[in-house]
């Protein structure tokens, strides 16, 4: 097993900077997510960690040893790709044997290892089937199995569930996480799917344009995003933003004004002078028919069973609130919005950075 440390890692492809200056640490046994939209540098980061790409500068340490310029096969890492990459003419057992045979293990040891891995993945009954006849899920299991039999110090996975349909993906995600809980092997997992990252990850690195936007445990990142990008990328529906226009704030301020309305916020800790945006998650908006709150108009409601998502218009912004499905909201009707004062973030509109407050300072200092 392994602890992996990344220090000031940078990668250029000609003029293009794929990864700018990444620093983070993966603890031994963690399920670690590299999350971001396509082109953000997450796969390049993973490929450098695996030794498939050499960094322009910076360091990669595995268990304290600098491996930045070592070849992939000297790093004792197993890679699982999105496409299953199995040998189509071989059966499941032969596919699993392959990496072991090439390492010169004895027949008895190989059989023992395959039996163990097949049991972990629950594919014992498939060992003699040709891979061409397997379902998508079973193929993915075999691909995983081939990584596991080698007993590597870490697993690297690049969108391993990307090719599966939504329902099955959820099932495989749970299975993968349960597998990790049994084996506790350090796993680095690349995805663009925020729900997958939240669901499976012990820690998440959120990347955008080659830069790490935030690094931490899922709930902290969700509750206290360091940037507007993270606030928007994580959560479904995303965090809502309300532009407060040009604003001056001092440390100790605990109220902001929107039009003529006062909005309570967590105690602010920064001097600020500029264009200010307020951010609030859909579940932290209450819809009120009393006179309190900010006036809005109901645009749409989407029933989800226990909850519903109600879209409302405030000035020129559209906000989404997650509320109980038991209430009815007529489209076009007026409604007042009340924000949960404990859960409000403020952002500098031009830099996108979150302002520090009593509520988020601990999270922001950590990542």
């Amino acid at each position, binding site marked *: 097993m392994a602890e992996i440390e990344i220090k000031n890692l940078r990668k250029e492809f000609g003029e293009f900077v794929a990864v700018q200056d990444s620093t983070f640490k993966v603890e031994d046994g963690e399920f670690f997510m590299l999350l971001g939209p396509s082109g953000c540098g997450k796969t390049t980061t993973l490929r450098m960690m695996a030794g498939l790409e050499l960094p322009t500068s910076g360091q990669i340490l595995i268990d304290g040893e600098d491996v930045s310029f070592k070849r992939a096969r000297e790093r004792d890492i197993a890679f699982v790709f999105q496409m299953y990459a199995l040998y189509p003419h071989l059966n499941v057992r032969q596919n699993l044997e392959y990496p072991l045979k090439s390492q010169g293990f004895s027949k008895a040891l190989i059989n023992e290892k395959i039996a163990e891995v097949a049991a972990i993945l629950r594919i014992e009954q498939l060992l003699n089937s040709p891979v061409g006849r397997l379902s998508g899920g079973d193929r993915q299991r075999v691909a995983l199995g081939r990584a596991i039999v080698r007993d590597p110090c870490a697993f690297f996975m690049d969108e391993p569930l990307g090719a599966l349909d939504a329902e099955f993906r959820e099932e495989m995600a749970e299975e993968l996480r349960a597998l990790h809980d049994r084996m506790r092997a350090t796993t680095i997992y690349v995805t663009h799917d925020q*729900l997958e990252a939240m669901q499976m990850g012990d820690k998440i690195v959120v990347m955008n344009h080659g830069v790490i936007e935030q690094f931490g445990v899922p*709930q902290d990142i969700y509750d206290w995003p360091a940037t507007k990008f993270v606030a928007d990328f994580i959560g479904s529906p995303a965090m809502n933003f309300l532009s407060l226009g040009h604003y001056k704030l001092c440390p100790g301020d605990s109220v902001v004004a929107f039009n003529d309305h006062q909005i309570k916020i967590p105690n602010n800790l920064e001097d600020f002078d500029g264009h200010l945006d307020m951010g609030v998650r859909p579940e932290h908006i209450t819809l009120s028919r009393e006179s309190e709150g900010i006036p809005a108009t109901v645009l749409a409601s989407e029933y989800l069973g226990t909850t519903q998502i109600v879209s409302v218009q405030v000035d020129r912004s559209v906000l989404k609130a997650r509320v109980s499905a038991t209430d009815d909201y007529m489209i076009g009707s007026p409604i007042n919005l009340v924000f949960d004062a404990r859960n409000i973030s403020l952002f500098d509109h031009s830099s996108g950075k979150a302002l520090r407050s009593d509520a988020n300072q601990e999270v922001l200092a950590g990542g």
Partner: protein
Amino acid sequence: MANIEVQNLNKCFGDNVALSEVDLSIPDGSFVVLLGPTGAGKTTLLRLIAGLDHPDSGRVVIDGVDCTQRTPAERNVAMVFQQYSLYPHMSVKENLAFPLKSRMLSVTESEINRKIDAISQTLRIHHKLSNKATELSGGEMQRVAIGRALVRNPNIYLMDEPLSSLDAKLRSELRIELTRIQKDIGGTFLYVTHDQIEAMTMATHIGVLEKGKLIQFGTPREVYDHPSSVSVAARLGQPRINIVDATIFPGSPRAAKFIGFRPEQLELGAEGLQTLIKRVERLGDQTRLHLSLGEISIVTVTDPHTELKAGETLSIKPKAPFFFDSEGMRI
């Protein structure tokens, strides 16, 4: 717009029974979503209503007129498919105008322009009217395809997974847009999907299909709150409903073989059965708890900032659960 009645419809392809004794009534101005897994018969039913296929037996009645033997054109239906089938050599405007230029309709040029103007505003593709169809993004192409159905004034709009090839963000935007458009024009929509979110958020009525049979029909709330069977209950709701043997929990009726409770239909920490917390999954707005009760896995949801940890025990008690008989039918 029109009422559509489907009566005792049967359709086989060789030995494969695609639809079996389907009765369905689509009220004028409703948004009916057919929900079911792959192979349930959703698309077959849509094609039979469109007139693209003919049933082995049964009738399709549009506004009181038996249309079973009529051609698609005679039925006056508009279809949108998953793959946006636009004419690549034509501009967006020409694509939209195409259905109106049919000789059977004899729509005047000024009327065509007025319609295209209105539809392209609604779908927010007005600024792209002179673009070639191939110069559009996937989302824009699908909006043009929808627009091409909307410029007409058919008896019913038939849509087969029109959003499934779009990315998540665009899908959620178009969900709201389609619902709004349907309300605005007061059209009758029949929409096929396997995505429960689309069904729940857009439909006035959901028809759940399984293995060629229509197993429940009702408003999203009726289907969610009062599922008629285990399979309907499992089709809606995320995470999925827990279905376990009825004898596990005390107090089940005698006829019950299974007890079903959604993740939110559990009282936690109350007097009940002891479970072990296997995993705490924090999704931000909610936290899921994966519990084990002996060999049985149960999922529940709780407060996002719960202090509960894996390895701890938690007692659970179903609140207002569903009971099902040995056939999986609701008691």
